[in-house]
């Protein structure tokens, strides 16, 4: 039997003609959805979306089983894949998500890295004590702990008066940019200490210890001139938040490192991904904390020059963070 024209049975031509409109309609909706949010669609279009999506999937299934038109299969596969991500990638409204993040997910993630946070906090403290003792005994150590650029003249050789001005004077414009550079530097170090967690957490530990070292050296410089308490006050107003954020980012990194070293029952890749996602939640929060710390540093420290008030603010914030993160609450975790 010779075949010149398509005979009875499946006809790609008819198949296309019957469904092409649906595909085009779905494509239009997709394009609109991809350009922004679901708000770009009317209610009718929203209701239509899953229907059209399933129509495309069914077209694909039929075409795969019955058609050998490569162009058609290719097109449908592409459309179905795009649709899959658009339909299943859709999330709850932004406000719901933000609400859930602050109510449940962030504190839960922070608690999940609890042990790591304790380790990092101890390590920072150890670094501070070490360098403070060393610098108090021999000021020459200072250069080893604090790079010149970050010291900004606050060295053991500086006069008491100069040191006092860095704490109590309203910042001049030059100091303003110095404060900004400290903030961006510290934030970048926090992010780096998270990223270094991938190398089984070891460089994270080193970096956090080093952060403790440079902080301790600074404390020693001021304490040596009898400004220890004042410096602590100056530091605490934003430092409690910033140091907490630094510790949390280190803990998040360590969490990943730990999951990769000891994946438990899961395989290493799955364990790393799960830990990475928890750490990601922590890090979203850490970035927020760093921004808050930056604001406190830029504004609060300028306006409030009284040591007691500074302590009060810093202490309140620390207490606030601790309560927020660690008070047990009825879990509505999803």
């Amino acid at each position: 039997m010779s075949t010149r024209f398509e005979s009875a049975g499946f006809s790609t031509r008819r198949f296309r003609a019957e469904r092409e409109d649906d595909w085009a309609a779905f494509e239009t909706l997709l394009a609109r959805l991809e350009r922004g949010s679901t708000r770009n669609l009317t209610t009718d279009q929203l209701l239509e979306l899953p229907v059209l999506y399933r129509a495309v999937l069914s077209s694909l299934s039929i075409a795969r089983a019955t058609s050998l038109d490569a162009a058609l299969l290719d097109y449908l596969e592409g459309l179905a894949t795009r649709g899959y991500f658009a339909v299943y990638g859709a999330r709850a409204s932004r406000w719901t998500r933000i609400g859930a993040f602050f109510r449940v997910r962030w504190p839960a993630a922070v608690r999940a890295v609890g042990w790591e946070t304790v380790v990092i906090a101890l390590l920072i403290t150890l670094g501070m004590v070490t360098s403070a003792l060393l610098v108090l005994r021999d000021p020459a150590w200072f250069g080893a702990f604090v790079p010149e650029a970050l010291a900004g003249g606050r060295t053991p050789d500086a006069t008491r008066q100069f040191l006092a001005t860095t704490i109590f004077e309203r910042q001049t414009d030059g100091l303003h940019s110095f404060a900004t550079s400290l903030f961006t530097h510290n934030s970048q170090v926090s992010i780096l200490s998270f990223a270094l967690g991938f190398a089984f957490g070891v460089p994270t530990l080193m970096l956090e210890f080093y952060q403790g070292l440079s902080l301790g050296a600074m404390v020693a410089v001021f304490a040596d001139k009898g400004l220890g308490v004042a410096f602590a006050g100056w530091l605490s107003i934003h430092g409690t938040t910033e140091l907490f954020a630094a510790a949390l980012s280190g803990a998040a990194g360590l969490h990943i490192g730990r999951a990769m070293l000891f994946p438990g029952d899961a395989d290493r890749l799955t364990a790393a991904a799960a830990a990475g996602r928890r750490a990601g939640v922590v890090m979203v929060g850490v970035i927020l904390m760093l921004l808050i710390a930056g604001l406190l540093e830029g504004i609060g420290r300028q306006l409030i020059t009284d040591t007691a008030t500074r302590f009060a603010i810093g202490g309140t914030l620390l207490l606030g963070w601790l309560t927020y993160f660690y008070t047990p609450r009825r879990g509505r975790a999803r």
Partner: protein
Amino acid sequence: MAAIETPALPRARRTDHRTRRPVVTPEGVPLNLFIGSAGMRLAALIIDLLIMVLVLVLGAFFVNWLGVSINAATVPSLLMLFAFAVRNFYFIGFETGPRAATPGKRLVGLRVVARDGGRLTNEAVVARNLMRELEMFLPLTFLGVSETGDMLEGWATGAGLLWALSLSLFLLFNRDRMRVGDVIAGTWVVETHRRKLAHDLSTAALDATVPAFSDSELALYGEYELMELERVLRRGDTEQMREVADTIRDKMGRDPVGDDTDFLHAYYTALKSRLERGLLFGKRRADKHSAG
């Protein structure tokens, strides 16, 4: 965008199975994702970095202009904050969007997806991009340090650079082309697959001068060859079409006469029709070597 629209050639039956990652939708339909190649990733990254530099330069001009008209002394602070924001939030900002891709990725035709086929969460995007600190910026810092002349320091820097690079090039050493950031975020970067629906070749008007094909002539080839033939027809290269037409005619024992395009069109239509009828009866013929 040109890179996405030009290839009208289908590649549904791509021979490259090494980059294919099937995902089954909740409706039970398997879809194929294709892992983006290292070259595409590099191209996307270069585009993104160029855009970042451009944004930084334009932003610097803007901040400078703003600063001069308000308060010149705040310019350095503002610049630092701006650079900080661009460095850390460029990738995160774009990849949390509905397309899950930076402009560079979109241009090259890539997007980020969750490895488990579920939705791509914000924290996964944050995790995978904060890791860039380790992969992109850490090697750069080692490069910066290496200018001090000290021998021991030189070795230490070299070792550090090597270690940092091994993390940067991690992507080359796994089949899924995952960066370190992808590993810990549980993500893949896959090709987006955006194509116009090409016209149906078998509906093209058939030339009656081509003699009908006998059953044995149609039994020569299978699905693979049909798809290849479709590719040849869509490309429309006369040289190639002559070659293919001659090969087919030779196998049939026909004389190499007549118009190649008409012949191939007619054969494509007839072969496709025959194979599709086979499909309806549950018979698949993968290629010319399998039994028909």
